[in-house]
């Protein structure tokens, strides 16, 4: 029975090759666009995240000074005493983290934290001849810094390890170098907010892709930074950690928070726009690609509907010969499923090829040289699953209609 029905489906399919081709093409289009859209959006999301995390750690520990002012005087004991304190200010507080090593150890003991580094950050003046600019000086741990930020990948000139070899070495952000008209090998003068001045030699240029950072940040080794600020050996302004999956940062920050007496902040805090941009792009990708698939579904529906209308007489004859409603559904549904399968697999390949081509289109930003594409197997699985579901529905409706044809009405002529 099945073989006979399949034979009929096959004859129907192959006797109208042009229609078959158009139907298959609409599925190919739908599936390949689904794959391309999702691969591209995921690529953009990943690129965006990559760029973001070149200068931002997943978890940041720092000394948050915006605490409440301590009570300077005990409140008066009796109600007939009036106390005035005007112009209150804190006179003794600790800036930065005194014992960064301890914090590093706490962070490293969490198995989800994959890398930890410390920084000494300070606002300074950069001076090169008459050019005088305000910016951030980062004292970095040359070994650990690249583990978090892939810093080495963004060096456009020079080598980061030079910072460890010479205490007066400095790496400038590309924008900062341009603004200072300074080049590798030049000397520039730094002045701290405490008025300490020191000459550094430019040994490298870095470009992370985030303009505001490239324009204002310079890096020296953390030891030199401590020296410059006259701080002790374990001093840091912040301790930074990366976790295995950046989406888990919030959870892991909560885990370690209890042991750390400084502010422990996951990246999502204060960067909600990044998270929501990713989510929005995902929603757009899914909405657009599903729409395309549904349009492809209409294509199949249209063609199968046409086929059924053209074959009313044949359907009536089949029914008169003893084929029942189930057989008729099977005959026509098989045709759409075959269209769905051929179109589906061709679509997977086409989608991959389109993605691969776009992946090669030059596009220079940060460390990227081509448009970003992510190849995610799940996208391909979902494309095929959605594609087949839609083909099935689009094929079932006309098949159902065919099964309900009244043979007498048609055969009476």
């Amino acid at each position, binding site marked *: *029975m099945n*073989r*006979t029905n399949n*034979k*009929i489906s096959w*004859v*129907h399919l192959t*006797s109208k090759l042009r229609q078959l081709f158009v139907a298959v093409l609409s599925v190919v289009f739908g599936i390949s666009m689904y794959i391309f859209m999702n691969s591209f959006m995921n690529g953009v999301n990943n690129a965006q995240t990559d760029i973001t995390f070149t200068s931002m750690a997943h978890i940041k520990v720092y000394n948050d000074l915006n605490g409440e002012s301590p009570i300077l005087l005990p409140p008066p004991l009796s109600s007939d005493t009036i106390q005035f304190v005007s112009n209150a200010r804190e006179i003794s507080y600790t800036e930065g983290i005194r014992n960064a090593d301890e914090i590093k150890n706490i962070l490293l003991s969490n198995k989800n934290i994959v890398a930890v580094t410390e920084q000494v950050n300070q606002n300074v003046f950069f001076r090169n001849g008459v050019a005088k600019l305000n910016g951030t000086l980062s004292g970095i741990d040359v070994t650990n810094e690249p583990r978090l930020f892939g810093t080495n990948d963004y060096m456009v000139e020079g080598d980061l390890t030079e910072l460890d070899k010479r205490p007066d070495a400095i790496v400038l952000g590309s924008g900062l170098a341009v603004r200072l008209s300074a080049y590798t090998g030049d000397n520039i003068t730094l002045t701290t907010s405490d008025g300490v001045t020191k000459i550094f030699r430019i040994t490298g240029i870095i470009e992370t892709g985030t303009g505001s950072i490239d324009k204002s940040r310079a890096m020296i080794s953390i030891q030199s930074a401590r020296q410059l600020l006259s701080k002790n050996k374990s001093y840091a302004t912040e301790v930074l950690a990366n976790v295995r999956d950046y989406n888990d940062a919030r959870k892991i920050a909560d885990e370690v928070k209890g042991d750390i007496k400084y502010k422990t902040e996951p990246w999502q805090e204060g960067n909600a726009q990044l998270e929501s941009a990713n989510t929005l792009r995902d929603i757009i990708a899914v909405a657009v690609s599903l729409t395309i698939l549904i349009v492809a579904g209409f294509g199949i529906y249209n063609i199968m509907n046409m086929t059924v209308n053209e074959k009313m*007489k*044949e359907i*009536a*004859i*089949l*029914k*008169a*010969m*003893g*084929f*029942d*409603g*189930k*057989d008729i559904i099977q005959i026509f549904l098989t045709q759409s499923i075959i269209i769905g399968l051929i179109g589906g697999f061709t679509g997977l390949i086409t989608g991959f090829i389109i993605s691969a081509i776009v992946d090669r289109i030059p596009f220079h930003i940060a460390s990227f040289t081509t448009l970003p594409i992510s190849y995610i197997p799940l996208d391909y699985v979902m494309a095929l699953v959605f594609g087949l579901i839609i083909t099935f529905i689009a094929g079932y409706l006309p098949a159902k209609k065919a099964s309900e044809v009244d*043979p*007498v009405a048609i*055969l*009476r*002529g």
Partner: protein
Amino acid sequence: MQSLAAVNINKYFYDPQEFHVLKEVSFEVKRGEFISVVGKSGSGKSTLLYLLSTLDTAYTGSIAINGTTVTGLTQNQLATFRNEHIGFVFQFHYLLPEFTVLDNVMLPALKLNKRPKEEIREKALDLLTLLDVRGHEHKKASMISGGQQQRVAIARALINDPAIIMGDEPTGNLDSKNTKTVFNIFRQLARERNQTIIAVTHDDEFAANCDRIIEMVDGRIIAQHP
């Protein structure tokens, strides 16, 4: 032994207006009988045949074929029943145009799926030889002449050795030689294999040589002879 019994059949058409097309039709057919139904155009012959072949179920009264009351069976049960027990030749020789002549003849047997494919093929070729359309079996059904198509349709009706064969002017498109061939085949099937034949015809000679003639006027059976 009874092959077919119709009891008090009434049928109406409601579109465009109510029309009583079959009126209290009752008759019986014995197994192996060769019957022709005659009557003026519009007297309800085709309509009656659609009821008897179980394609049309909108009627009152009851029909029994081979001892099975088909009135009241579901569409799917009727489809299976038709496939096995009824061979039908339509007034307009309907074949499946995209299939070859041979496939057209084989399809009802492939659907029934009671014999191996090779045997079905042999049988189909034998029937095509019998009906003098041998040599065209690999052509598309749409590529042969009207008369040839009608004979292919007859071969298709015979492929499952149905207990009852119904034809709505099965020789309507045939010349006198082929009409004679078809008549002789029917005659032989009825006599030798005990298959019942009910054929609507306008051909007086065809009718005259049958076992019995049922004559219809305005939806009523007015005479049966001899």
